[in-house]
Each structure stands twice: as structure tokens, then as C-alpha cells.
């Protein structure tokens, strides 16, 4: 199993792609803090209907955990990046034809899937760290917009650790979904279109419709994980639903990969 992970990590070491991944995480972290400072500083309240973004209230932002609020606010944006990169790295095996060599070398295909997942988990941990670091560097932008940051230093280490863990867990669910869609479609473009299209269009529209349990939709659930729970969805409930998404995604990818002929 370890040899599959090492093999995947070697292929994941494509500098340009990793720079895009980490760069996007950092850029989103800076952007969300800048936008958050402007929106929350002026409006003073969260819950603005912005596709893919959930702004905190001024009160939440001024709390000790407010220093990391940018991570949870933009968690779905980070999620789309993570989904895209997991899908890209997975679909690349098909587009390059490498899947033929991989399956011929390791016929136990579920091991290939597990190895790829494990390698991507490691890189996602680095990407999450990059986002967290960028967020900490960008946080002073919020303080400069008139929002009180007096409480931000309280218990800073555990606040940062919890924010990192929450974001990481949400990114793992996003990533597994990207991997599953890419295994089924064998196309990164399809996976990204489905992931981004769902969050930015479908879920945003569903949230506006009456009678739809919007708190339990995919994006909301994963945002609840990234936030450590919300007023309407507890962290444990969101985590359970996220775990269910992961299990379904991995089962789907596993069944398709192990049963489908490698014909291209």
C-alpha cells in the first residue's frame, strides 16, 4: 500500500500544478478577508445571499475565533479548488493513458484508489495549511476596517488548530467528491463543471426556493463542517453527513474503477 502512495506522491509533485493549487488557496484567503472586512464592516450582519460564500456576523467576527473566520466563510470556494485539483489529478491518469500502466502494475485496483486518496489527503493538508497561513496574514485587513480584534489573541493556538481541522475535514469531503466524479466521468472538466455548477448555481437557487431544507444541502453541510457547526446544523450532524458523502463517493469510485474495463 505504501508503494502506491509513494508512486502517487511522485506524480503529485508537479510543481506548476501544486503552485496553482496552493496559490488559489492563498488568493482566496486574502480575497475573503478583504471582502469580509468591507461587507461585514458596513452591513454588520452575515447571511448575505452570496453564492458559495457565507459571511459571519460582526459579533462572530469580533469573537476570539473571528481571526480564522475567513476560512469558514470561503470554505466552499476552497472546496471547489480542492474538488478541481483532486479531479484533475485523478482524470490525468485517464487522459494520459497512464491508467493502463497503473492497473497492469497493480491489478488490485482498490489499492490504486486508496493510494491516490491517501496521497491527495497529504497534499490537501499542505494546501489547508497554506490557506490558514494566508488567512492569518490577511486577517489584519479586517481589523483595519473598524471591526474590533481585541479578543483575537485569546486561546489563539486552539482557535487556529480547530479552524485548520474544520477546514481540512470539509476539504476532504470536497476532494473525495471530485475524485469520485473524475473516476466515473474520466474527465476533470466534467468534475469541475459539476462541482462548481452545483455550488454556484444549483444550490444557490435551491436556497432561494421555499420548502427546500437548505441547511442540509451539500454546500451548506460542508460549510457547517468548516465552521465547526452553525446555528442550524451542529458540527457532529454535519460531520456525519459529510462522512456519508465520503463513503458514498468512495464506494462509487471503487465500484467503477474495479469493475470497468480499462479500454483507453
Amino acid at each position, binding site marked *: 500500500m505504501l508503494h502506491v502512495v509513494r508512486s502517487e506522491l511522485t*506524480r503529485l509533485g508537479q510543481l506548476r500544478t501544486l503552485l496553482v493549487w496552493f496559490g488559489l488557496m492563498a488568493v482566496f484567503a486574502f480575497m475573503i478577508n478583504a471582502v469580509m472586512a468591507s461587507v461585514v464592516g458596513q452591513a454588520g450582519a452575515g447571511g448575505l445571499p452570496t453564492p458559495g460564500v457565507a459571511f459571519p456576523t460582526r459579533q462572530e467576527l469580533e469573537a476570539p475565533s473571528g481571526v480564522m473566520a475567513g476560512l469558514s466563510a470561503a470554505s466552499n470556494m476552497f472546496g471547489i479548488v480542492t474538488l478541481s485539483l483532486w479531479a484533475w489529478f485523478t482524470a490525468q491518469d485517464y487522459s494520459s493513458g497512464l491508467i493502463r500502466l497503473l492497473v497492469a502494475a497493480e491489478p488490485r485496483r482498490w489499492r490504486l484508489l486508496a493510494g491516490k486518496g491517501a496521497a491527495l489527503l497529504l497534499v490537501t493538508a499542505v494546501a489547508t495549511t497554506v490557506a490558514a497561513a494566508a488567512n492569518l496574514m490577511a486577517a489584519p485587513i479586517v481589523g483595519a476596517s473598524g471591526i474590533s480584534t481585541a479578543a483575537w489573541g485569546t486561546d489563539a493556538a486552539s482557535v487556529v488548530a480547530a479552524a485548520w481541522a474544520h477546514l481540512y475535514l470539509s476539504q476532504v469531503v470536497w476532494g473525495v467528491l471530485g475524485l469520485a466524479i473524475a473516476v466515473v466521468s474520466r474527465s476533470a472538466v466534467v468534475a469541475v463543471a459539476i462541482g462548481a455548477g452545483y455550488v454556484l448555481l444549483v444550490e444557490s437557487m435551491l436556497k432561494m426556493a421555499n420548502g427546500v431544507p437548505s441547511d442540509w444541502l451539500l454546500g451548506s453541510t460542508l460549510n457547517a463542517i468548516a465552521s465547526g457547526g452553525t446555528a442550524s446544523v451542529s458540527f457532529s450532524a454535519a460531520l456525519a453527513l459529510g462522512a456519508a458523502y465520503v463513503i458514498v463517493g468512495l464506494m462509487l469510485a471503487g465500484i467503477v474503477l474495479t469493475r470497468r474495463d480499462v*479500454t483507453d
Partner: protein
Amino acid sequence: MAVIATRSLTRRFGNITALDRLTVELPPGGVIGLVGPNGSGKSTLIRTLLGLIRPTSGEADVLGHPIAQPKRYASSVGTMIESPAFIGGLSARANLTSLAHLHGTPMARVDEVLGQVGLLGRDREPVRRFSLGMKQRLGIAVALLTDPDLLILDEPTNGLDPAGIVEIRELLRRLAHDGRTVVVSSHLLSELEAICTYLVIIRFGELVFAGPMTELLARTGAHIDFAPERPEDADPLADALRAAGWQVQSTDSGLRATGTGRAADVNRAATAAGITLARLGEAQDSLEELFLEMTGRTDGELAAGRATGRREAD
């Protein structure tokens, strides 16, 4: 023991039968050519042997292990399936390292195979900058990573220029000389006849020929090409020769006779019939001619043959 043995191996894709009850045994050692026209089932056979696709029915063994358990022979078989597959943004060395990790092969082997295919010195360049010939050589390096007993290479000279083809041929010859069995597929017999010791010809997924190259060469016979001085004498001359026991057929430039006699016998028969010959000569059938006779000359002929086969099957 046969390195590869199939028994009634069949694979269907919808209405298309890519492998049709194929039964064949490949002996160990040397370069074995797997030849057939495009769409004859070569790639399907290779993929089935490597566990990439499952057969509809039938059985097969690779190095004595059933194809239902490819893990048992995966590290003993080196493969290049269709075009070489690499991550273009990674260097040749990184691509090889990734696959070496997957096989659990020591990293020192990466240098060895790079040296074997002559890519040391270019190994740190991104593969996307490689020419097709370099990619093919890198593909063979991947196949050699585990120092396998059996190499299965699907069209390794595809898209190469003549110099590249000669280069790959020499490499394959060397690999076989080192004691490996090298199975090479191609749709052109001419690409393989110079290096193969054993040949398998398939068409429509069915076995047409399997045997030593010498056996196929023995099937090529001599023929006599000739033409009467006056074109209207062609039919009476053909009739006269047929009556004498020759097989005669028309060609683009005249007539062709096959039989036990020599050119002088044809000349005598023509003279006896009062016909003057404008041209007469003996020639040897080429292997390519024989191959085309066995597999069909054109894509249209193949398509017609396949359709006829299907109607007969219906």
C-alpha cells in the same frame, strides 16, 4: 511451458466480437510477433492478458498463472500498451520513479533502464519535450523496470520514422538475446519479419496462423509471371496451362502461374499453343503477399469479410 496460453478466449463488445474463441500457445524465448490488420483483436488480446479487460468467456494463462489473478504475474511482465503513457509535465526520471515506486523496484533500476534505452542525459527533461521516438524508448524503459521475463509491447514502432523503427528493432533483438520473451504486436508483418522467431497472425479475433517464422516462410512458394505478346491470347494460354495442371490467375500486368514446373515449361506450353510470350520470369512470393492473402488486402475487404462472418454467425 508456454509463456502465454489461451483457450477459447472470447471477448465481445456489444455486437462486435473482438476475440473469437482464440486458442493459442506462445513458446518461451525470442521475439514473438502478434500480427493482424487494424481491428483484428491484437490490443484486446493484450489488454485481456494484462487484466485490463475481462474476457466474455474462455481462459488464458500468463507465465503459468491464470489471467483471473493478474497480481501473480504483474511484476514478471513488462508492458507498453498502445502509445506510451506519461505525465508530460514530469521529467522522464520522475515518471519512471513514480512507476518504480508502484512496482516496489529499487531506484537504482531507474538508471539502469534509462541507460538501456539510451535516455541517460535527457532524463531530467519534461517528457512533453520528447520526440515520439524518445517517448517510445521511455515506454520500453518502463516495461523493463521490473527486469521482467516477458515483455508485451503493443505497436512499439507506431509513428516512428525508419531510423527510429530500426533502432527499436535492434533494442528488441537485444532484449530477446538477453533471455527474455518479447511479444510485439503490429499491423504490418514487414515491421516484424526481420526480428521475429515465432509468429501469431489473427484476423477478426480468430487465429489464422501460429508457428515458427520458418514455417510461414516455407509456405511462400515460387510463381511465374508472364504475358503473351497479343493480349487476346491470354485466355487461350491460361486454358492451355490449366489443362496442363497449372493454377493460373490474371494480374495487372499479365498472368501468374503456380505449379510444380519451371518457366521453361510455361514457355513450351505457350509455343505448343502457337502463342508468343512478350515477358516471362520466375519470382518468389513475398511474406507480405502471403500475409495479405491470409488477412485480407484492404480495409474494405476486411469490412466485407467481417460482415460476411457475422451473417454466417447469425
